[in-house]
């Protein structure tokens, strides 16, 4: 399984802070994004935002990063702390 987390605006828009998805071969951050976008219109809209960021195992990465069983993948908007 892959643990998927959502933060801030995404968490609220999707009414979800985490879910699990099945790991498959040759999985990438982009494929997970597409898989989630296929859920329905709301998910399609939220997951296609240009500003969307992704982290794998707590490290921000790009959309071609490979993802394996046991990884933690997080989606979130640009950060605004400080």
């Amino acid at each position: 399984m892959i643990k998927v987390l959502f933060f801030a605006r995404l968490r609220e828009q999707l009414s979800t802070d985490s879910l699990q998805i099945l790991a498959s071969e040759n999985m990438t951050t982009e494929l997970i994004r597409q898989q989630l976008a296929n859920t329905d219109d709301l998910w399609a809209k939220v997951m296609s935002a240009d500003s969307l960021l992704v982290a794998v195992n707590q490290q921000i990465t790009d959309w071609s990063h490979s993802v394996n069983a046991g990884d933690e993948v997080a989606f979130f908007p640009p950060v605004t702390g400080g």
Partner: protein
Amino acid sequence: MINVQQNDFIVADEYQKLADDNQDGAVVTFVGKVRDFNEGLGVQGLSLEHYPGMTEKVLSEIEAEARDHWPLNKVTIIHRVGDLTLGEQIVFIGVTSPHRRAAFAACEFLIDFLKTKAPFWKKELTSEGSKWLEAKASDSKISQQWSTKLTN
């Protein structure tokens, strides 16, 4: 020392901990506060969310990067999360060094990078409801300028 916490911090106490070393000639501290941000909506406060685990990891990386560039002795980074009202303290950065210029530069670097790299998100609570703040392009430009400056 890196702390992500709900509780407030006391600047005098943090200063005391930083200043307790006669090797250092310079202590520089920065405090960020909740301010009335924008657009006349009557900001009452902020709610601060973060990504537990990743936040601490990113802050440690930023600290390590600062230590690569400047001769620093002590570094304190405290960031609060949860609900904060107008005027409350959000973030504390403190650094000590034998040299004042290193201390000033490192303190500025730490807050600039924290703002663009650490996974915190602010939601503004106004008289007309709540609203997630948008990231500022000017902030990411500032951290890019650091990267250019430090690699040259």
